[in-house]
């Protein structure tokens, strides 16, 4: 598509090539995995880092944004400072991955009887068929890079009919200026139920780059709640991908909250593989300063009778750039699909920006699809109403912004996760308020 011949490589691309060349023999996995790595890196090199002319990355030009690339983490445990837990008080089991390495001794796997946790390295050595199974249709340079360099991560297996009692957090923590490539594999059997919180944090001031790809396969009639918290360190780059297939009559509820990192891109690809499944996909972005955050939510209705809802809210302060790309594909035979997408941006400052890119590719005729996008500032009339009751400006703005985000956060339909995420939104707003007062 966009594979124009490329002559010049950026410094970041050169570094990645050198890193791959040096690391290829040490990277874990069977010979089949080794050749998959070679193929993936070749695919990456052919197109290079995504740039403006790659439609799917239009607003996140990594060629320009990634000036350099830090050294690879590989299997070294760097052991820098582990940042504070942003979800403190929220009850869940924890799978802790530090600097790309699964750390059982720091994890808490209680209350998740029935589920099995395996380090991804074991799947790589066993040449497990689940590696890459969800990525076939995804043509994305960042995913290719992850396949070439993936080391750590975990596999979570929930067998048929099992309801996992506690939510499971997959906590990704980066403590030093390194490049981390994590691969997680999640399999949820038919009639099973699972709640996942995928979190991403890292040390302040550390220019690390985290590239995390999670492949999830969700069986028929299963119920999965998947919340992602991107609260990476302020100097970092976050590249996150979730590729998920959902079976017949499945309910998949997904929320991405983006608030950290200097540059971030979160992409979710949902493929409907069974009929009468429902997916609720929500995004909430809260950024300021010079942050750049891009959420991509893509839905592929490959079968008839699916329902998808995408609702995205972004709040930008300072000189931040918020981006949303929503993609809905309805395949030729996917009749009776009902897909809706709504995007709203709220600009808290003059210099912030919001770009929304809805894409609908509808090949079936008997479908209902709708999308809408708005962008604006805090409503002056509403603000004055609150001020006229004596509520100070910062507090009034906080009330209005909280209300704005609530629709996306509550959309997930999980009260405990919603409360934890709302608390994080509250902290962000409080920090903003105290800056304004200072």
């Amino acid at each position, binding site marked *: 598509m966009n594979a124009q011949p490329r002559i010049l490589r950026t410094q970041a691309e050169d570094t990645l090539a050198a890193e791959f060349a040096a690391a290829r023999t040490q990277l874990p996995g069977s010979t089949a995995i080794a050749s998959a790595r070679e193929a993936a890196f070749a695919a990456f090199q052919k197109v290079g880092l995504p740039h403006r002319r790659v439609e799917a990355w239009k607003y996140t030009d990594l060629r320009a944004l990634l000036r350099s690339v830090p050294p690879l983490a590989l299997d070294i445990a760097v052991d820098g400072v582990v940042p504070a837990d942003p979800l403190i008080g929220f009850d869940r089991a924890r799978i802790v991955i530090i600097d790309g390495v699964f750390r059982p001794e720091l994890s808490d796997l209680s209350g998740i009887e029935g589920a099995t946790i395996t380090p991804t390295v074991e799947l790589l050595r066993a040449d497990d068929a689940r590696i890459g199974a969800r990525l076939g249709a995804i043509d994305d340079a960042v995913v290719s890079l992850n396949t070439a360099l993936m080391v750590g991560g975990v596999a979570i297996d929930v067998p048929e009919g099992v309801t996992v009692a506690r939510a499971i957090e997959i906590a990704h923590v980066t403590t030093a200026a390194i490049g981390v490539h994590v691969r997680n594999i999640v399999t949820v059997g038919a009639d099973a139920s699972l709640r996942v919180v995928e979190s991403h944090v890292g040390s302040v001031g550390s220019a690390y780059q985290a590239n995390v790809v999670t492949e999830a396969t969700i069986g028929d009639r299963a119920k999965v709640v998947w919340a992602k918290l991107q609260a990476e360190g302020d100097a970092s780059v976050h590249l996150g991908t979730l590729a998920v297939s959902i079976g017949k009559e499945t309910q998949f509820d997904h929320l991405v909250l983006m608030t950290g990192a200097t540059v971030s891109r979160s992409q979710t690809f949902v493929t409907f593989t069974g009929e009468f499944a429902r997916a609720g996909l929500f995004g909430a972005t809260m950024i300021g300063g010079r942050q750049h955050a891009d959420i991509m939510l893509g839905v592929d209705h490959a079968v008839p009778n699916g329902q998808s809802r995408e609702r995205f809210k972004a709040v930008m302060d300072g000189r931040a750039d918020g981006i949303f790309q929503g993609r809905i594909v309805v395949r030729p035979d996917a009749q009776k699909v009902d897909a809706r997408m709504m995007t709203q941006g709220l600009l808290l400052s003059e210099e912030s920006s919001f770009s929304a890119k809805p894409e609908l590719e509808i090949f079936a005729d008997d479908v209902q699809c709708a999308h809408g996008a708005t962008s604006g500032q805090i409503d002056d009339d509403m603000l004055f109403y609150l001020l*006229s009751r*004596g509520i*100070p*400006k910062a507090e*009034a703005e906080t009330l*209005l912004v909280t*209300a*704005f985000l609530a629709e996306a956060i509550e959309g997930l339909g999980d009260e405990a996760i919603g409360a934890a995420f709302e608390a994080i939104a509250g902290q962000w707003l409080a920090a903003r308020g105290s800056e304004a007062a200072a």
Partner: protein
Amino acid sequence: MLEIRNLHASVGDRQILRGVDLVVPTGEVHAIMGPNGSGKSTLSYVLSGRDGYDITEGEILFDGKEIIDMPAEERAAAGIFLAFQYPLEIPGVATMTFLKAALNAQRKARGEAELTTPDFMRRVKVAAEKLNVTQEMLRRPLNVGFSGGEKKRNEILQMALLEPKLAILDETDSGLDIDALRVVSDGVNALRSPNRSMLVITHYQRLLDHIVPDVVHVMSAGRIVRSGGPELALELEANGYAGYVEAAA
């Protein structure tokens, strides 16, 4: 309580208030009547500190203090309350959260302790019962899906809780049915006190049957063009504004 002298206000290059003179002594209730577009709501916004107006001339003294440079939230804490002609719907902000934030913010600004939750709940319950504001309405987001009359009752509920020194009621009677008009008027009358002043903006004499004013003013083209006793309202009801529009022009 309130002294307005030669107040001129404009929006962009549009002059709306053209020399308002108005004095409302402590404990009195004054009514303002006047044709559509004469500047009544504008005056209420300017008094409560809404942004976007250029005050080109004149002064507003509240308790003897100039308030033109005071932000809206400080005026509210000082005791100025506006019951909106069109109360705003604020989706996602729970009515109770809003009421508590408003009450406590004003208390804090005055150096008073915040209310405890039970104390707050009790106050809301008492005030809500008097105004026929149901618990179900209080559970909804602020004014969202409220009927016109419900919104107006919610305004008076806020006034009852916030206990302002000066209440400005902008067409609080519009949209009310006969029973609701009585409920709201009773609510307002219950708040009449020797320490509290009110400025009641209305188009209709019938409100003033319930809330009997000490003084009635006529506003036309951005000025107070006549003031008199309650009988002035009856005269206006009978004759309309014909004479005043020309007088002001």
